[in-house]
């Protein structure tokens, strides 16, 4: 990202965060928050909103998956590490969904809690079960590298809100990549058993990688308008980076074929329904409840 573009984004959002800051909500600097996006006037155009919905759903569903690990990770410190990553992703989701929701006169909560399974647009990889720790790390490696490449491009989006959300998220995602990489190296070069299990996990998640780079009709329009990259344009660099980590971990890059997937059209695996049931039950049982 050029410096001037970064400056433009900062200028646009400068001060917005401070207008509603309170003593209990520490807002150092001008970090962009969903509340700021909700306060902005202009709703996104239909395509921009749908694209923001896709981005938000990916992060929301993965955040829900990862938060399961809290109290269940191998050590307390890893509980916190995965919990932090889940919260980062939830933050991205809130920003993107808040932005998208304005097109339809809704709120982020209405999108998160009151849509049905077939209305969700998240990629199939993000809804895959946590499995053991190895499966979670494999999913993290694949998705975090994808998200880092994507956000790096989105920082230059012609949509200034999407660019601003991505600029903030990018720094967090760089850490997610590092976290997954460190664990791949340790499990891959750990014991025979840890290497065997991580290899199995990498193989298990591989079929869902293809969909990350599938160009849908909306992607073509988004790319033409300079809002975001074609997913297929990220594949080569993703392959290089993920292969480098897997090879350095002394494991094999999986060769399995891509699974058929149309998640962006609302066609999901059997796992999503259960995830949504848990995520949405409270909001649906007590509509409008707050705490």
């Amino acid at each position, binding site marked *: 990202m050029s410096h001037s573009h970064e400056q433009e984004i900062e200028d646009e959002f400068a001060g917005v965060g401070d207008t509603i800051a309170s003593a209990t909500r*520490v807002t*150092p600097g001008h970090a962009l928050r969903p509340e700021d996006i909700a306060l902005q006037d202009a709703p996104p155009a239909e395509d921009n909103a749908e694209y923001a919905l896709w981005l938000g759903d990916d992060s929301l569903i993965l955040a829900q998956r990862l938060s399961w690990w809290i109290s269940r990770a191998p*050590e*307390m*410190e*890893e509980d*916190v*590490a995965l919990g*932090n990553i889940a919260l980062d992703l939830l933050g991205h989701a809130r920003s993107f969904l808040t932005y998208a929701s304005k097109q339809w006169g809704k709120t982020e909560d209405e999108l998160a809690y009151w849509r049905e399974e077939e209305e969700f647009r998240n990629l199939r990889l993000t809804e895959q079960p946590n499995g053991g720790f190895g499966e979670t790390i494999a999913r993290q490696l694949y998705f975090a590298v994808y998200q880092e490449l994507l956000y790096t491009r989105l920082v230059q989006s012609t949509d200034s809100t999407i660019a601003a959300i991505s600029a903030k998220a990018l720094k967090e995602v760089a*850490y997610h990549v*590092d*976290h997954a990489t*460190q664990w791949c190296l*340790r499990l891959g070069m750990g014991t025979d058993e840890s290497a065997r299990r991580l290899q199995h996990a990498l193989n298990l998640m591989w079929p869902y990688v293809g969909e990350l780079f599938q160009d849908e009709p909306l992607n073509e329009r988004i790319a033409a308008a300079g809002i975001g990259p074609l997913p297929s344009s990220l594949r080569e660099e993703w392959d290089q980076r993920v292969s480098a980590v897997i090879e350095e971990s002394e494991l094999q890059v999986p060769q399995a074929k891509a699974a058929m997937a149309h998640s962006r059209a609302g066609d999901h695996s059997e796992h999503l329904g259960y995830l949504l049931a848990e995520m949405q039950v409270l909001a649906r049982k007590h509509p409008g409840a707050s705490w």
Partner: protein
Amino acid sequence: MSTPATGNNTGQTNATGAVTEDKHSWPLWEVFVRSSRGLSHVHAGSLHAPDAEMAVRNARDLYTRRNEGVSLWVVRSDDIIASDPQDKSSYFESPKGKDYRHATYYTASEGVKHL
């Protein structure tokens, strides 16, 4: 959490009272956080991690969540040599009553205006 003086609390005490390493849990690390440029690193607490690189990352997750720092140090708790609490009197009571070790003990000379 433990202070450096108590050593490695991941270990177990055997029959002779010596602390033995517990092979099934990660070793303990002490974390030092520097809150801003120009200040020193200050002991923030401790954590478990399998190795040094992961210890720094866990420290980032545990001790800098609320903008606390700009730099982190970690060191194996085992590697810290601490003074013995039993030596407290011989170590730390000698300076008492030795006011002349403080600058305030002395009166400034008339000729020195800007001291």
